[in-house]
């Protein structure tokens, strides 16, 4: 802990030198939040990632993203293979051409990294659990209480008697969001769970799971709400449909806003050092950034818990019997 603090203070000292051109904080923040076609490890050293595009003119094309730039890392105007790099996005040279972009971007690398980490960790936990003769220790001792917490307090309490059908999904959801959040806090990391496409996909999974497990009472409550006058049922219907859709939207935006705003605040404090160019600001902002990173660890856990909790509540509401 002390090491992290001391090393981040040194970062503030190094920021005291003059910058070549004026420091653009907005561009720096956006560069660290958004997805990109190359992996920038430190400033100036970046690994070009493969671009995989299926366009209707030329079919499937695979090429390195370094071909879109010249030696000074300025995007080429004429592009390559019919595409050019425009502010982080790949634009076709002839407008209106449809294409299917399957490139390995920074977020895809991080997706693969998160899933591999999950596979390694949980295979080891499962192997330890299968051997019931020894007391759990090591990684198993860390993850088993968390798994039991999710099983008892989140899934069993909210879904009730059929919780075992949904438990694998809930556990995967929780640990994917937790690992994705925590990995995103490391330096040179991609903002995986703060990408609205990723959170939207997770919310859509929950949405589909909820609606495919809804029983008769669930659908009856939505389309033909019992207990209110006949005419009111037609007025309540659009409100119920909107209520059906607000659940995945709120799940999406909650996770996206929490993680992205956390990253933006940390990056802003680091950027203050570069704007003010003074030792004092550097030291104070380094202290604040360490504190903010600890808060972000707490937020990482809380947001994973909240997403899983709300998913279980929605599934529980969809599968509960008539009362």
């Amino acid at each position, binding site marked *: 802990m002390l090491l992290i603090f001391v090393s981040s203070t040194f970062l503030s000292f190094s920021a005291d030198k003059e910058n070549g051109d004026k420091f653009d904080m*907005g561009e720096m*923040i*956006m560069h660290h939040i958004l997805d990109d076609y190359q992996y920038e490890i430190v400033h100036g050293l970046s690994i070009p990632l493969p671009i995989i595009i299926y366009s209707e003119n030329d079919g499937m094309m695979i090429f390195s993203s370094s071909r879109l730039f010249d030696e000074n890392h300025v995007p080429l105007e004429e592009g390559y293979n019919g595409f050019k790099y425009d502010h982080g996005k790949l634009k076709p040279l002839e407008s209106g051409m449809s294409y299917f972009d399957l490139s390995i971007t920074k977020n895809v690398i991080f997706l693969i990294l998160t899933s591999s980490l999950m596979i390694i960790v949980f295979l080891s936990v499962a192997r330890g659990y299968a051997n019931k003769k020894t007391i759990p220790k090591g990684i198993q001792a860390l993850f088993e209480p968390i798994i039991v917490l999710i099983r008892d307090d989140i899934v069993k309490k909210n879904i009730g008697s059929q919780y075992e059908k949904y438990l694998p999904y809930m556990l995967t959801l929780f640990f994917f969001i937790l690992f994705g959040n925590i990995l995103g806090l490391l330096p040179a990391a991609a903002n995986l769970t703060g990408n609205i496409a990723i959170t939207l996909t997770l919310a859509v999974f929950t949405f589909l799971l909820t609606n495919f497990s809804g029983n008769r009472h669930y659908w009856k409550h939505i389309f033909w709400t019992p207990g209110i006058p006949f005419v009111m049922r037609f007025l309540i219907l659009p409100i119920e449909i909107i209520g059906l859709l607000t659940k995945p939207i709120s799940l999406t*935006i*909650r996770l996206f*806003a*929490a993680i*992205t*705003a*956390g990253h*933006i*605040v940390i990056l802003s404090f680091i950027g203050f050092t570069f704007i003010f160019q003074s030792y004092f600001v550097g030291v104070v902002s380094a202290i604040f950034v360490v504190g903010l990173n600890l808060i972000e660890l707490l*937020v990482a856990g*809380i*947001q994973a*818990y*909240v997403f899983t909790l709300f998913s279980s509540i929605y599934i529980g509401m969809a599968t509960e019997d008539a009362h």
Partner: protein
Amino acid sequence: MLSFLLLDVGLAVIGTGLAAIGAGIGIGLIGGNAMTAISRQPDASDKITAPMILLAALVEVIALGGVVAGLLVVFGVGG
């Protein structure tokens, strides 16, 4: 008189500040009620503290949504 070039940025920052007021009031209420509950029954302090942190995180996210919206305007995303 407000310089017309920064009117959108100024309004966005005011909006973010209003969202922060909302979060401050919300979390203050949660914390205040939690303090009252703990003072009435100190044995239950663990059971009260855990949901308090959770609810504070939920309310915080709404304020952070305001921050993100304000930042989107300030950095000119979406022109």
